[in-house]
Structure formats: C-alpha cells, structure tokens
C-alpha cells in the first residue's frame, strides 16, 4: 500500500474496497476481542475479601457501592411507601426464612431487646415496655429481593417514636443502626435515613395479632424502603455506629444498601 502511495497512483476501486474492508474488519475484531477479554477479566475477577460485605466480584462491589452513593445523593429520604386499605392485606403471609431463629433454647417470655447507646449504656426492654408506646399500623407491598411481593399488614412502634421515647437521639445521629437476632446468626445494618424513615417500625403485630414465631416473635423490623432481607425477625440487639455494621446478606454478595 505504501508503495502505491509513493507513486501517487490513484487507488483502484477494488483496492479501496479491500483497504476499507481491512481497516473496518480489523477494528471490529480488535475491539470485539478487547471486549471479550474485558468480559473474561470481569467474570473471573476475584471475589472481594469478606468483611462487612463479601462474595461479590471486586469490581462489581465497587459498582454497587458507587451506585448507592449516586442514588442516595439524588433521592429523597422521606418518600412515603404507598399504603393500602386493610382489606387488601394477605391473610396467609409468606414466610421466607428462619435464619437466626433456630436456637432451641430461645424463650419468648425471657426475651429482652438490648439497646446499646453510644455512651455505652445498655437498655434492656421487655415487649411490654415497647407495647406501651403509641402503636402505628401499616399496610404496604412487602418486596423480596427474589422478586415476589405481597401486601401485608403490620403494627408496632415507629422507630422515630422509639428513639425519642428512650432518649436515644444522640445514638441515632450515628450513620448506621445495627440489628441482630439473639443468637447473632442473622444481622443487618441500616443507614440512618432509612432507619428513621417515618414508615420504619418495630413490629409486634401482624394482621392484628401478636407475631407468630415464624414471623419473628416477639419483635421484628419492618422497613418498607428496603428489600425483605433487611427486615430482621426476632430482634435481639440494637446498636449504633458510623461504620457499616455487619450484614448477613451483604456478606453473601448482595448490595449493602438494598434500598427501594
């Protein structure tokens, strides 16, 4: 080709076609190969080290965290979840998981909610202490990360009311709230804004009856702005921190934020 240029002989049509084919197909295959290589790299990229989160491909975890930051910047913290009339609520409420509730020694009567404030002081609350607070009901569309949803009816004390009543405002200034089952086998971390969302409740009733064991008796979290995986059943402890508390499903490769 170069020689032809030197002689300044105009290219024949066939030569032009051949040259343009070569360039474009060369580019096509080079970029295609690069894309394929990039894909292989991503697919085979090592899993992150398990800390607060785990088991996701490293680059994908970075993407999840960045996406969370972006959405949290542009989204509003007090968008209300749509609510429904009670008649729409499911009577057979789906039970999806019993992780953290398999301890045979657990006794509902002896249960206490242990709240550790930032000052290090501990509160030990019985279910009656919590039932004494104003009750809030919600009927909303519960959404599972698996893809199903169901309209459910819950009642309990709003987290904001709970915090105010037990004078935990200072603790609640921390960026995250950590909740764990009494046996410590299921645990979630929730960002402050979602925990203090006006529709987040500590629920002790479902369909106007006390919670059944399968639904997390005696007290569970109902947090409509999150997927079901964050709605911890049988809450044992509550704590506050500026770093992300450990989170069962985030360790299994799910997004930590899991906000809706």
């Amino acid at each position: 080709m170069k020689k032809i240029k030197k002689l300044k002989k105009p290219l024949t049509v066939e030569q032009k076609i051949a040259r343009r084919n070569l360039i474009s197909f060369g580019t096509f295959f080079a970029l295609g190969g690069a894309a394929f290589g990039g894909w292989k790299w991503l697919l085979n990229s090592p899993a992150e080290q398990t800390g607060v989160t785990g088991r996701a491909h490293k680059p994908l975890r970075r993407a999840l965290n960045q996406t969370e930051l972006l959405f949290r910047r542009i989204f509003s913290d007090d968008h209300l979840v749509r609510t429904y009339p009670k008649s729409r609520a499911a009577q057979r409420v789906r039970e999806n998981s019993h992780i953290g509730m398999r301890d045979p020694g657990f006794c509902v009567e002896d249960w206490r909610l242990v709240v550790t404030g930032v000052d290090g002081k501990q509160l030990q609350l019985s279910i009656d202490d919590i039932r004494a607070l104003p009750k809030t009901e919600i009927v909303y569309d519960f959404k599972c990360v698996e893809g199903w949803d169901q309209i459910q009816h819950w009642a309990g004390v709003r987290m904001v009311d709970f915090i105010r009543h037990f004078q935990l405002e200072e603790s609640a200034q921390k960026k995250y709230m950590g909740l764990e089952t009494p046996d410590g086998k299921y645990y979630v971390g929730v960002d402050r804004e979602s925990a203090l969302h006006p529709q987040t409740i500590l629920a002790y009733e479902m369909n106007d009856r006390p919670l059944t064991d399968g639904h997390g008796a005696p007290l569970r979290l109902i947090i409509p702005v999150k997927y079901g995986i964050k709605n911890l059943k049988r809450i044992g402890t509550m704590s506050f921190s500026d770093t992300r508390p450990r989170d069962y499903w985030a360790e299994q490769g799910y997004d930590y934020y899991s906000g809706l």
Partner: protein
Amino acid sequence: MRWTHWVNFPILAIMIWSGLLIYWANDVYTVTVFGHTFVKFFPDWFYKTLHIPSRLAEGMAFHFLFMWFFALNGFFYVLYTILSGEWRLLVPNRHSFKEAWLVVLHDLHIRRMAPPQKKYNAAQRIAYTAIIVMGFGSLVTGLAIYKPVQLYWLAWLCGGYSFARILHFLLTIGYVLFFIVHVVQVILAGWNNFRSVISGFEVVEGEEGAPKK
C-alpha cells in the same frame, strides 16, 4: 450507528443473562390457558444447561452495572439518529404499516414484488423503531422495579410493581424473538449487507461501481 449496534449486542446479552440469574429466584411466569400450562419459564434443563440456579446476588450485581451502559448506549444511538437526520429513514411513515404487510408477504415468497423502499423497507422501519421503543420500555420498567419507592410514579405508570416485572420480562422475550428473526434476515440478505454493518459501505455493482457510503 454501527458502533452503538455492535456495542449493544454484548451489553444486551449480558443484561439478558444476568436477568435470568435474577428471574430464577422467583420464576413464576407461565403461559396458562384454561388451567393448562403450555409453557413454563423456564424448565429445569434450561437453567441447568446455562448454570443459572442460585446466582441471584451475582446476577443483580452484573445487572446493576451494565444497566448504565445499556442506557448510555441507547441514549447515544437516539441522539445520533436525531442529529444526523437518519431518523427520517427509520421512523415509520403513514404508508409503512400497509407496506410492511406487503414486505412480509414478499419475504415469505407469497408475493413477487416488494414495494419500493429507501434505505430501510417498511417492515424494517417498524421493527427498528419498535426495538428502540422496547429498549426504552425496558429502561422504564426496569427502573420501576429497581426503585419502586423513590420512583413510585414510574411503578404506577407501569401498572404496579408486579406488572412492571411482567412487562420487563415480556420485553426481554421480545428481544430474543427479534434477535432470531434479525439473524435469519441478515443471513438471507447476504454478505455484502452484513459487511456494510461493520464497515459502513456497500459495494454496488453497476456503471458507477464506486463505494457508496
């Protein structure tokens, strides 16, 4: 336009694959008429062959990264067709729907003559515009499922959370069908046509015989 076409191919493939990883976790869709289930999405052998089961978290992570690329690529394509004026060749005009039928008959060898066309025939105009509308639909329904609280109005617009998920699924099935027809048509159209989608020109035999852009 060629660029976005070829960029879209792997992105859509990844979106469909990671979408399957997600769908598996709640694979409830079937085609059922009068109590008889004709198709179940999807049978076990299908999942097993593609190694789909128990990868929900991984699927979500992939899906929520490549969604950005899918959206950006679509945005660039639409921007380009508008700026270049090529949309005039692509968007169906008032004759297209009648002509498209003739094109289909012609392609099925039922009718001998195809109606006159410019760069794209009437059926192509409809198909290539529809696929963009579908892409936009996937984006909208996807967002409605992804952030149904923040974007509650989108979820409402899509007929609610569950219905948005069904639409999102159906659109994906639509892409697969489009892909099959598309590939068959490309094979029938021949090498010269295929090359043009990569290199940007077609060789036209004739007196001029010059490469045509």
